């Protein structure tokens, strides 16, 4: 059942002109950022080679090209997820799911997977751009894989956040604003938490804090756990919200 719902959700996204426009803009951003940072690398390559531990192309591009893209995915993921439930409520198609033998868990997971898989295509594209350099130069694949895992986990958490806010309202715009506000706060907690000692604990709730290591090749359990827990938290909240809709009697 989850795969049927995921397929439906994914195809719904691909039928949307807005999604194709966003993906085209995203691909343009990947290309621009990649070429720009590649040019910077070529200009500083000689100086980098003189360091005790010289940074290679993959290490440089991972931090300068891929890490900033995480912010783009943080913005894009809720955009893709915002219509998942709010459009169903607004167009009154949610009655189909409410009267079907589909549990809230299946519906939530199906919709999440549908959105996430489409987003994952974009993550793969961003990684493939750097991976294609293998044709010209040796690529540090473990580091690239680490960056890919970080981007994917971050995207999954942000998509789950967008899905939850989408389940709260029939207005897609409100859903996107609310999820972006929360994700922005989560990013900013990293900066706030790096200041005075009493605030340092806040950095633990920051997306940026937990994401940075992935782009330097450090895959730490606590960082993976942060994103997995964030994803599960929002999926769990969505399931509770869908169950409560039957109790409250409106959609």
């Amino acid at each position, binding site marked *: 059942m989850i795969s049927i719902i995921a397929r439906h959700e994914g195809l*719904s996204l691909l*039928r949307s002109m807005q999604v194709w426009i966003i993906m085209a803009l995203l691909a343009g951003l990947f290309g621009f950022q990649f070429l720009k940072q590649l040019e910077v690398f070529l200009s500083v390559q000689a100086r980098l080679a003189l360091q005790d531990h010289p940074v290679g192309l993959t290490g440089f591009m991972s931090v300068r090209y891929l890490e900033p893209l995480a912010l783009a995915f943080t913005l894009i993921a809720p955009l893709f997820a915002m219509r998942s439930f709010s459009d169903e409520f607004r*167009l009154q198609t949610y009655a189909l799911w409410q009267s*079907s*033998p*589909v549990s809230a868990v299946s519906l939530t997971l199906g919709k999440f997977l549908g959105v996430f898989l489409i987003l994952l295509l974009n993550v793969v594209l961003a990684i493939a751009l750097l991976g294609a350099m293998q044709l010209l130069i040796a690529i540090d694949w473990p580091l690239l894989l680490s960056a890919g895992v970080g981007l994917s986990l971050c995207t999954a958490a942000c998509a789950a956040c967008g899905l939850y806010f989408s389940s709260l309202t029939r207005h897609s715009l409100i859903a996107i604003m609310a999820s972006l506000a929360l994700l922005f706060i989560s990013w900013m907690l990293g900066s706030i938490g790096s200041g005075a000692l009493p605030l340092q604990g806040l950095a633990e709730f920051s997306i940026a804090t937990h994401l940075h290591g992935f782009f330097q090749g450090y895959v730490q359990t606590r960082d993976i756990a942060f994103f997995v827990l964030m994803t599960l938290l929002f999926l769990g909240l969505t399931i509770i919200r869908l169950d409560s809709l039957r109790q409250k*009697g409106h959609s």
Partner: protein
Amino acid sequence: MALHTSDSEQAGETPPTDSGSPLLEARGLNLQHAGGAGVSDLSLQLQRGDIVGLLGLNGAGKSTTLRLLCGALVPDSGSVHVSGYSLADAPLQARARIGYLPDQPPLYNDMRVSEYLTLTGRIRGLDRQQTAIRRTQIIDQCDLGDVQGKIIGTLSKGFRQRVGLAQALIHEPAVVLLDEPANGLDPQQMEGMRQLIADIGKEQAIIFSTHLLNEVTATCNRVAIIHAGRLTSDRPYHGEELETVFQEAIA
């Protein structure tokens, strides 16, 4: 003869009722905090072959009653059993045996009719093969052959209503709940709808809400009248003057 085999949550299960049990049994339903009209102490039984017209003034609680019976709403108290399955204890099994057409058909405007019916068949638990067979049958039954390849958003209101009806019937449910099914139909389409209801009412139990008395006189063998959330009359219908019956029931 309902088809329910592919969904793992329903596969291989035998309905816990014998052939003489009611297909739908609602006992003491109460709902006071819904967004729409409330329902008080509503009890109802549907047997195979029952075609029940649910009559009532606007805001009497007709739609709320149907949403309670299909599981889209959870009552404050009371129970609903479908083919012996409790909507509270075995919601997926119970909902798999219900076909529901809300007053606003739950249609995805960007899908083609045949795609949409495939989706609704699959989420109701039919496997691929059964879905293909039933889709062909229901397209024929609901006279959708000419529009099966068309985008739903381009269809007239009458065709949209028929697509909505087709999704409610595709899995051959034991109980069919229709909320104002004649909405938007022209006289010829209404006649077709009556014939269709009469046909499916031979093997299934049907309850449909309407405030058109002639719809009931033309189709139903039983009439239930709801007023201010209470079922004030529930009797077999043998062609008597319905206007008088209705006025007495809401007096």
